């Protein structure tokens, strides 16, 4: 069983459809004074919600989570901790690098943020200077959220050196639109279920077993310092253990554009706009999956959590039911005969927490020019292997499929589409011989990136240690570069103080991939490779 007292609630709680808190608020700050930053953490620490605390009331009283970006960790003197325990372990080095570099530095090369999504066109708070921390709050009622916000606001006001950079607020819709995102689809249905997380798992949530049934994902895919799907325990130092990485991304949705486009494709092909949209997503608006409801929406099915996600693509090799490039098929090709195998897919799963921001655009209304979209949060243990991989290879390319043959044809819903000769299209196969397949030409970019950052959601112990300036306990793997110990009297008794916290700074990470994909990502690796090639074992 995972230590749910240690893990912040945003990692493993309240991310499923129907359980997501209605109101969400993010406050982003930058620290200028280390002592004040620690004092602020100390003051807010009692309110930080663990999974265990969340379970007591289902988050009814409101939830506060604190996440730190790399610059803050560096300022606290733990920058050196953010490194792979084994510097020759590429998997771990890449994960650390992504976190250190931050989203802005990786956006163009790894996330496909170009043109209107390019980082230099992001909103100023995400573009100009790196953020240090985010206070993530959510609650089912606006009163409860106000209470949590009030205490965070008071705490921030008490420390003038902490710069409040920016706030983002999101809220799910009411009534018929409850649980939907701006394009009108139910969101958050398919989510990984995590081993030992102590919550209910529904069919379809995990990894498909050989013939029937699903297994939960190993917890190390989402919780640091736990065994993952590769059988490894990454980030096992006390500093990271029971933490997780949180990707924050502000995604603007061009709802008017989406509706106009879908309508025109529908008209040209003599089908309904709902049909076109469902084929792009892989689910109907209610959330009913095409794999189980190929011909028309089935809200009944969507409401049943034991059925709404229980499907695989193994008997739909050619995409007759769910087209090969549909959003959900790309992003989780569960046993897709034309896609990557099960072994590969389970290495690239993400937990999503998406909350709409901006007002809903009434069905049928013209676009009012107001900005709206999704505050998109991903929880994963390895940003490079999970979020970035998905975004790079599955959303913005097609290279792991044996049937998708146009690299320019990207995820129809969220892909970074291009125009002109590189414009993408989307093909919906037709099973009737008398009808040509439906082709949606010149896909526009329905979603643009407004900004974002990579954060660490530390464990509660780590937050405590940061707040009280306590050195972390020794790591399991020896590390020759440690300075002399400098223990503090106010440390927690259960924390071993024999090993110092300050380690030598890690080497500069590579934020942009080499132009040639066959080059090792770190300079030292290249030397090692050349040396290795000639040395005897």
């Amino acid at each position, binding site marked *: 069983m995972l230590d749910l007292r240690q893990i912040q609630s945003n990692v493993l709680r309240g991310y499923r459809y129907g359980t997501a808190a209605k109101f969400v608020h993010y406050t982003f700050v930058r620290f200028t004074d280390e002592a004040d930053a620690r004092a602020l953490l100390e003051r807010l620490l009692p309110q930080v919600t663990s999974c265990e605390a969340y379970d007591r009331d289902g988050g009814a009283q409101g939830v506060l989570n604190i996440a730190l970006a790399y610059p803050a960790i560096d300022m606290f003197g733990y920058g050196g901790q953010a490194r792979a325990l084994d510097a020759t*372990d*590429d998997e771990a080095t890449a994960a650390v690098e992504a976190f250190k570099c931050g989203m802005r530095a990786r956006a163009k090369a790894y996330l496909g943020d170009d043109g209107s999504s390019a980082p230099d066109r992001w909103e100023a708070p995400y573009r100009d200077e790196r953020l240090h921390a985010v206070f993530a709050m959510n609650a089912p009622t606006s009163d409860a959220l106000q209470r949590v916000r009030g205490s965070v606001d008071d705490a921030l006001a008490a420390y003038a050196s902490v710069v409040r950079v920016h706030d983002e607020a999101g809220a799910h819709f009411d009534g018929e639109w409850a649980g939907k995102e701006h394009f009108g689809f139910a969101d958050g249905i398919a989510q990984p279920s995590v081993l030992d997380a102590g919550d209910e798992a529904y069919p379809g949530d995990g990894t498909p077993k050989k013939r029937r049934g699903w297994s939960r994902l190993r917890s190390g895919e989402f919780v640091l310092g736990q065994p993952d799907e590769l059988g490894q325990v990454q980030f096992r130092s006390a500093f990271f253990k029971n933490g997780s990485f949180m990707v924050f991304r502000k995604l603007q949705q061009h709802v008017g554009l989406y509706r106009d486009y879908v309508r025109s494709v529908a008209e040209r092909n003599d089908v309904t706009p709902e049909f076109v949209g469902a084929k792009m997503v892989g689910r109907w608006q209610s959330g009913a999956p095409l794999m189980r409801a190929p011909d028309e929406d089935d809200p009944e099915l969507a409401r049943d959590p034991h059925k709404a996600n229980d499907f695989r693509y193994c008997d739909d090799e050619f995409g007759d039911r769910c087209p090969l490039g549909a959003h959900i098929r790309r992003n989780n090709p569960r046993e897709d005969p034309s896609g990557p195998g099960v072994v590969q897919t389970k290495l690239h799963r993400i937990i999503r927490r998406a909350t709409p921001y901006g007002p809903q655009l009434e069905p049928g209304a013209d676009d009012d020019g107001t900005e709206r979209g999704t505050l998109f949060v991903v929880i994963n243990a390895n940003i490079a292997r999970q979020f970035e991989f998905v975004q790079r290879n599955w959303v*913005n390319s097609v290279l792991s499929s044996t*049937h998708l043959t*146009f690299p320019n044809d990207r995820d129809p819903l969220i892909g970074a589409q291009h125009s002109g000769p590189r414009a993408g299209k989307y093909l919906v*196969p037709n099973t009737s011989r008398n009808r*040509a397949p439906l082709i949606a030409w010149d896909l526009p970019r329905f979603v643009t990136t407004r900004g974002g950052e990579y954060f660490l959601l530390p464990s509660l112990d780590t937050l405590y240690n940061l707040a009280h300036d306590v050195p972390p306990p020794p790591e399991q793997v020896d590390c020759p570069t440690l300075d002399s110990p400098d223990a503090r009297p106010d440390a927690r008794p259960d924390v071993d103080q024999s090993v110092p916290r300050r380690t030598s700074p890690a080497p500069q990470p590579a934020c942009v991939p080499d132009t040639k994909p066959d080059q090792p990502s770190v300079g030292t690796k290249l030397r090692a*490779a050349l040396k290795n090639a000639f040395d005897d074992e």
Partner: protein
Amino acid sequence: MTPKDGLSRRDFGRAAGAIITTGLFTGCRPCFSPFTPESEPLHRRGPRTFTVRAKVSPSHFRELRRLLNDPTHNPFKTDARGIHYARFFTTGHDTLYFMVIYDEYWNAVHFLGKNAEGVDEIFGHCSGFPRGGAADAEALDRYLRDNFLCVELFYRAYDTRQSDIRDALVLRDNFLSFLRDSDGGTDADLRALYADFVDDPHLLNHDKSKTNDVPAALTAANRTFQLTPIRSPDRVGPFTLLARIKDKELKKVQRLLRLGTFATIDLGVRPLKNLPTLHFARVSVVDRNYMLFASVYDGDFIQYVEDFGTRIAKEIDKIFGSLVGYPMAGSRDIIAFKAFLRARQVKTNAFGGSYLDRSLLQIKSSLALSKALAEFTQSVGPSDRRLGAKLRHFLHDNQLLLT
């Protein structure tokens, strides 16, 4: 297991049987390489390869490395007819490798000759390179042959000539434009656009059933072409690996590789065909017991490696299993496998290709589509009464080639 599924025992059996019965060893083929220039026409057409291993003159190495590592330096500046891919890399402190995948041996020689300026600049650092440089075709040919490295395994995902591939790629693009322009239009529009489309020289060039009388200059295959340097990490790239073979395994693995080549080239069996991103792979044995593996693949390295471990684990384990330091659990242990590859990887200094922005699947589906289109356009003309319906059937039957 069917032969399609991989390099099964049965394939080996067949391949071995074929060798014995057909006596393909006639002629001097010291290393079973089907790529010695003399024996080329005997075999199936399609891309071949050679590797040249040149000794770098003492004290020239640093300068050569600087040149090859300079991203603005592109030794290839002209028409690359008949050349699919080419690469340069160095190992140790004294060896330069040049690998090329070509249609005809003389394409490669002429290609080097035409790019003599850039090529001499590189090979000039190697001992024994002809004084007259690459422009002297005869001397260059001798030099190349003197420095050939035997290719033990050659895998190719397509056995089509470069010109046909280029035509097919353009043709599929043109066909899509036609579909896009005619989508939602009237019957008259459709006929007019279709009449234009069937005039496409790339289409006629692909119609192998009759002689092509379209001026060659109109087809993409005949336009001047360059080997372009790598532009983006999500397109075709090279991977090169050098690792020591376990002493006991050398003979066995060599036999395996040669059979693999034989299966690929002569029998048309694709041992690695389950890999949707691998264009070419090539293995040589250097310095008595080192394996030099070089491939051309699409996209992200991680993705490629994971495909190895999940799609063709068995074949890869058979080949790489002979290497010192190979993970016990084989390529299925993705972490260890990645680490193994990365640790033994050699940096490819210069890499160029004729279709660096086209994935393998794009090439394959374009080739298939152009064949289908050649047939279709022959039987259905612009004035066909049922043009619309026939086109719909055609699209339905070939929708996977347009996905």
